[in-house]
């Protein structure tokens, strides 16, 4: 909070009280109306018909199979994107090569593509009319309207999370420590696990958490490739949609509340990690200054 006291000590950097209170009041109302109220309403609507309805909604077989599928998709997508993120960040921050900026832009591409298009591209490659469609059909492999398609779409929409968190962090940390380790005879893997990894662990965790939240909550992309087969290709968000469209609101919000809890957990861990990252970056110069 050092920046705060810095601004509050002098009249030259503070506003009149009425300005301050008006701004705080306006911001809080905006925040309350647009962010807080929707969040609270999820839980209220979920429990509107009591605990029994809530519990039966989240434990019925279709809900359980949706939860399982969501976990499967996340368990595959997150580690794959984690490995990719580390590899990409290592290549981009530890070496100089042509086209680096283009590469960074391309890594960000999945964030600027509509989720609907993210689903569509896999339909065009693996679908019945797609590039590999006839071949997959003859081999009896199903990707679209089946679990592999859902996993692929999840990988696509969560693709940049870890890389985009690690690249600025490792860029800021520089190469000196790894250079020292290499000069002292450490192998590449030793350098990575003993020098780089401890330095980036909080940033890595941060990326993984955001990646996981998106993987479990993705709707648009997964909806396109899922085919909505109840009990088979429905993830939690798709199950929420089905229940909602059947006017089964209490059950829909009950299942949605699992995702809302996951979001709150994500934010809590994220806030903790941010705090760790901040305290470590502030401590850094002290450690570096020591002989």
């Amino acid at each position, binding site marked *: 909070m050092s*920046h*705060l006291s810095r601004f509050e000590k002098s009249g*030259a*950097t*503070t506003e009149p009280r009425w300005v301050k209170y008006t*701004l*705080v009041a*306006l911001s809080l109302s*905006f925040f309350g*109306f*647009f*962010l*807080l*109220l*929707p969040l609270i309403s*999820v839980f209220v609507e979920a429990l509107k018909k009591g605990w029994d309805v809530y519990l039966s909604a989240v434990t019925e077989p279709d809900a359980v199979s949706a939860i399982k599928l969501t976990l499967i998709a996340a368990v595959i997508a997150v580690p794959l994107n984690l490995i*990719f993120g580390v*590899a*990409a960040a*290592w290549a981009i921050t*530890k*070496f*100089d090569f042509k086209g680096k900026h283009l*590469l960074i*832009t*391309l890594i960000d*591409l999945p964030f*600027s593509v*509509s*989720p609907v*298009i993210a689903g*569509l*591209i896999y339909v*065009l490659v693996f679908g019945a009319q797609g590039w590999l469609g006839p071949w997959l059909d003859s081999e009896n492999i199903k990707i679209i309207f089946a679990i592999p398609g859902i996993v692929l779409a999840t990988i696509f929409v969560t*693709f940049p999370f870890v890389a985009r968190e690690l690249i*600025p962090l490792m*860029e*800021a940390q520089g190469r000196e420590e790894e*250079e020292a380790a*290499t000069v002292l005879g450490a*192998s*590449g893997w030793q350098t990575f696990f003993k020098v780089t990894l401890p330095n980036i662990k909080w940033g890595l965790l941060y990326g993984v958490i*955001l990646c996981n939240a998106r993987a479990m*909550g993705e*709707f*648009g992309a997964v*909806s396109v490739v899922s085919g909505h087969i109840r009990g088979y290709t429905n993830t*939690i*968000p798709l199950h*929420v*949609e089905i229940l909602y469209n059947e006017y089964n609101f209490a059950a*829909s*919000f009950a299942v*949605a509340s699992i*995702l809302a809890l*996951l*979001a709150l957990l994500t*934010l809590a861990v*994220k*806030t903790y990690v941010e705090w760790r990252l901040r305290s470590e970056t502030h401590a850094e110069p002290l450690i570096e200054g020591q002989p």
Partner: protein
Amino acid sequence: MATLSKNKIFPGFNLSLGYTLVYLSLIVLIPISAVAFKAGSSGFDHFWDVVSAPRVVASYQLSFGLSLIAGFINAIFGLMLAWVLVRYNFLGKKFIDALVDLPFALPTAVTGIALTALYSKNGWIGQYLEPLGIKVAFTPLGILIALIFIGLPFVVRTVQPILEDLETELEEASASLGANRWQTFHLVILPILLPALLTGFALAFARAVGEYGSVIFIAGNIPLVSEITPLMIITRLEQYDYSGATAIAVVMLVISLILLFAINALQAWTAKRTGRSR
């Protein structure tokens, strides 16, 4: 030569870059190029027929118009929220700071049904708006609210770090030269924040244009009135009209690419203006 020898210090260049390029190509580049091939294979006349159909044109107007308005509203309130979070102390500030990222963490389908419930006729907010003749759910206004929700953190999180790094000396100098607080804000502080503010606006806009999950429940999806462009792709897909879906996707992809490069340029400008790296 210098870079060449420098690259030899560390091991793993070929492995890490090779893996990055292969994975990027398999997951992102090759599938996206399928859109271009598919669009190319059905001919320009068909492409033009699809992308200039009245329903599709109406959806562009709706998606882009509302995304622009949502971006502007978020730029104003996002800047205000960032300012309040950086400059003032008040009860619950840390809680709010953490919860600003809620739209990033909350799955879009959950946002969609929650907003619809809030703003529908019997909802907590809708029941007060209905007697005033204001309809939000199942109208473009509802879409706007969903787009504001998902875009807010982009502005707050791009402006906030720049505000935190601001030197007090600038404002003190401005005050000592006789400027009042408002003059200092719009003549000294705002120009420094402008690149970050524009970046946040562009990020929120780009996200809003492609948004699907949080909008689809509250939109009502009435042809020519409240159909967003991503929905037009879905509608074609549901009819197994893959070339039609692809044609609309091409339009959206081109716009996304332009936005992506614009955002990168804006971020480079922010870095140059403030000396921060990204």
